[in-house]
């Protein structure tokens, strides 16, 4: 079975600082794959590299066997990769549902002519996209906010909205960067259910997260980073028993 995402000898230097150094791993389709590590370990940098926001200094990333070296983030999205952000990226100049409908962008190609005259095909597609977006908002648990302005929503609801937007793109792999940050225990439990539901539907999930209970509970495999390097890689059980990890991170 070939890996969906494969990272080989990845290196990213900012000036003299190596935020990510010699990182290799692979994620198979259908897995929940988590990246953990202390603050500043390079987790978000790794995600930014994988999603094309940063260009690697060295190394290679393969998505479905294809090198992503020359691809822009939007081209990676076309190939089935979508993500959320630690610093949420919500379009505050739109309503909640419009943000989710934005996620349908790739499925909604319409010509300028069709758009300017608002031909029936566009209206049909828009209605369908709206319906799908509403379902997704219901699915992630912010169905009460459909036509609310995004700027009027609470932090927790916005986090879920961002996941809904990423799901709207129907990705093969979804990268969630600290989805539980700032959530309370109840919200985190709901998030855990949600991630499990997403994975059960066949979407590969990559996760950066600090909440160890959450991570250990839902991950198939984990990657532990420390100062930009791989400290350990394996199943939750292996990680839990790894002496290096215990020393550096779990504080044993």
């Amino acid at each position, binding site marked *: 079975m070939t890996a969906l995402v494969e990272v080989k000898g990845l290196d990213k230097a900012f000036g003299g600082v190596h935020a990510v150094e010699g990182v290799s791993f692979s994620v198979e389709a259908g897995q929940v794959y988590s990246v953990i590590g202390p603050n500043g370990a390079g987790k978000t940098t790794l995600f930014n590299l994988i999603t094309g*926001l940063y260009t690697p200094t060295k190394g290679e990333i393969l998505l479905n066997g294809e090198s992503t070296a020359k691809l822009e983030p*939007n081209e990676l999205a076309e190939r089935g990769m979508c993500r959320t952000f630690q610093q949420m990226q919500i379009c505050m100049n739109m309503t909640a549902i*419009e943000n989710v409908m*934005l996620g*349908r962008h*790739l499925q909604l*190609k319409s010509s300028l002519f069709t758009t*300017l005259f608002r031909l029936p095909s566009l209206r049909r597609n*828009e209605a369908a996209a709206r319906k799908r977006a509403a379902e997704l908002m219901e699915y992630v648990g912010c169905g009460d906010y459909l036509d609310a302005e995004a700027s009027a929503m609470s932090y927790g609801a916005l986090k879920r909205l961002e996941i809904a937007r990423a799901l709207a*793109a129907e990705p093969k792999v979804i990268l969630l960067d600290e989805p539980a940050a700032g959530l309370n225990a109840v919200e985190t439990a709901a998030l855990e259910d949600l991630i499990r539901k997403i994975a059960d539907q066949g979407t590969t999930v990559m996760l950066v997260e600090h909440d160890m209970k959450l991570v250990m509970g839902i991950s198939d495999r984990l990657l532990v980073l420390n100062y930009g390097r791989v400290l350990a890689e394996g199943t939750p059980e292996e990680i839990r028993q790894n002496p290096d990890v215990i020393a550096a991170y779990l504080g044993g």
Partner: protein
Amino acid sequence: MLNTFMQSRLRGLIVLALILIILPAFLGNPFHYELVTQMAIIAATVVGLNLLVGFAGQISLGHAGFFGLGAYFTGIATGTYGWPSVPALVVGAIVVGFIAWIVGRPILRLKGHYLSMATLAVGFIIAIILNNERALTGGPDGMPVPAFEIFGWELSAFGRYSLFGITIEGFQAWYIFASVVLLVAVWFALNLIESPIGRALRSVHGSEVAASVVGVNTAKYKSLVFVISAIYASLMGSLYAHFQGFITPAVASFEFSILFITMVVLGGMGSTFGVILGAVVLKLLPQVLADFQELEHVMFGLILMLTMIFMPKGLLPTLTAFVSKKMRKKAGGEA
């Protein structure tokens, strides 16, 4: 029925159409008509500029350049080379759109103030060319433009036409024509905004990163909206040239660009009807303040500054919010 009307997507357009139909009852003389016709043409330009500035969040301080190019293309093609008006207008728009595309590709990589400076420079370059190419443009003295002509019909502000047995003056015919053009321009803008393309444009403003990770090619959409707004400006510049009958490089000037941007900011960035109100207010202002003509630019600067400080969302959005708040309070008090 009133309810479905209020929720209709096009209620603003219908209200605008009603205003344009009723307005002639308040217009006393040809000068009034001239002013309102100019307003409509400028408003349509600003509606196009608002797509770029208000919705996609990209500033252009050189939009009068594209307006001027459209005006001069029409002036030269119809006046010097005797083209019919409509082909001149269409070809002009295509040429200006192409120029905008070429210019836009490099400069739209810039952000914020840098983009403002680059667009400012584009505007200046166009104005300088129009000033200096005397043989073609007549230089600072300007050039005459023939009347608008369609299917052998000549639409002149000084003509007189009889339509279905009703006689209307040329300036009234122009008013009707400009009103229809404005309504179509607004309709197109509304359709564009409420579409996948419009969402992509707004997402470029809201969060470029978010837009790109869901598959929006942000560079492409920035170019697209830059070209669309330039085409709006070019088409309206062409009509303006026909309507005025005489153009000078002032139509492409920095002052004109600033006037456009002030209309957008005052009326309400990202509010299609707001920017029309902005255009109306700023076209009326010099009439009201005719005695203080030398202070006109000071006034514009002051308006821009006060708007930014006291109603950053602009005139119409602020008014709407105020009114709906009052109404909610009233409804709450009765309940």
